[in-house]
């Protein structure tokens, strides 16, 4: 399973990429492989404030709906319209075109509390 070293992770299989004060959030390669066939993505409303751990988006396979939790607190600044139109991007490019939403991070120090790639790799092994 692909676990990029520049990302941070949640035990519930979300990833976070920080650029400036903007965090991009998606689900990991491991998560998409477990779900298979992502057929629907529900994006959060832009402008919504979320706390770390809040269910913020929903990813659905044929069989089940899974909540996607906010890795850190912040304000939703974008949803990926491309993935809303073509949910299979979550399967084919989970760390790239399959990103789900972006947050303006409230407190950058929160990022340090998230799992790094080695910790996440150990978590899924």
């Amino acid at each position, binding site marked *: 399973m692909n676990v990029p070293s520049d990302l941070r992770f949640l035990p519930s299989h979300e990833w976070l990429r920080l650029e400036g004060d903007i965090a991009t959030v998606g689900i990991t390669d491991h998560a998409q492989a477990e779900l298979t066939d992502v057929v629907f993505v529900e994006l959060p409303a832009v402008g919504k404030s979320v706390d770390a751990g809040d269910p913020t988006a929903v990813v*659905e396979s044929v069989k089940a709906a899974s909540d996607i939790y906010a890795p850190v607190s912040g304000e939703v600044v974008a949803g990926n319209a491309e993935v809303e139109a073509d949910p299979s991007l979550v399967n084919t490019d989970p760390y790239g075109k399959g990103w789900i939403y972006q947050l303006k991070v409230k407190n950058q120090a929160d990022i340090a509390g998230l799992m790094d790639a080695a910790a996440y790799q150990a978590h899924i092994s």
Partner: protein
Amino acid sequence: MTDLQHSPLESAHLALGAKLVPFAGWCMPVQYTSILDEHHAVRRDAGIFDISHMGQFIVEGPKAAEWLNKMLTNDIDALTIGTGQYSLMLNHAGGVIDDLILYRSGESSYFLVVNASMIEQDRTWMENHLVDGVCLRDESPSWAGLAIQGPNASAAFAKVFPSETLPPRNGIKTLVDGSVLCRTGYTGEDGFELFTPVSQGIGTWEKFLHAGVKPCGLGARDTLRLEMGYPLNGNDLSTAKTPLEAGLGMFCALKKPDFIGRNVLLEQKSSGLPSKLCALRYLDKGAPPRAHYPVTTLDGTVVGELASGALSPSLMTGIGLAYLPPGLAKPGTELAIDVRGRKFPASVCKKPFYKPGQTA
């Protein structure tokens, strides 16, 4: 999750990397690679399902036909040897205990295939009503079950059993190797169900895989049956609903002198049905509808809930079944399905949602 029963084919599923889940008290494959791929394989080519969890009862004896006619809704006298029919077993209130397929395998012997989740209840109910001259045997543990379904299922059969022939639709026969072959299925496609002694299960399974048939799990089995509008007991059928409410009146021979539940069906027929199981289809794309999601009118009043729901892989839109007040059951009635507070417009439509051979 304890005390799950295990299919005689489980080692073959694990070797294929299947995802196993609890279903109806059994540990069964929900998918191998992808529910969508497995679904499409059955619509376009051929797929094989493990149905070893399903139950098999043998009913025999000089009074077998007369007794079954009282226990079940359909008319057994219509069956010649080697043919089968869909039927329902009701309680005294007319509620559905189980739906099943009954085959006449001999002059006075019958082979019943019942739902996995209901084997115990069905057997107990039948034993409690048994009469002299009828012998009931639960052979469920003795048989592995395989369903081979799809437009190329017959061709696969010819490869695996070159010296045997398939019976006609709804027919049953015994093969030279001792397997029981039924020309039935739960997908709407051509195909057959093969009940084979447990010891031969994996060998027969592998022969079909070598013939190019794709292994398919319960996930695809569910989307395939729902596209046909076929009910699933526990979702769409229950002791709280009669088969008339479920739209299965054609399998209830009310002209028979008697069967358990008949009086209630006659009463419903004259006074009107309290609800009807309706097919609902999204008008646009939307979040996959699932069982228990509320069904509402356009102004938001809740009028029922989904008994079954799924994203239809063939139609790529949401489909579902729901018991609704008869006034809302007319095809074309516009309603909505509430998914986490979002309303997706849907309309009542005719079954099936999908006709085999149709290009979506």
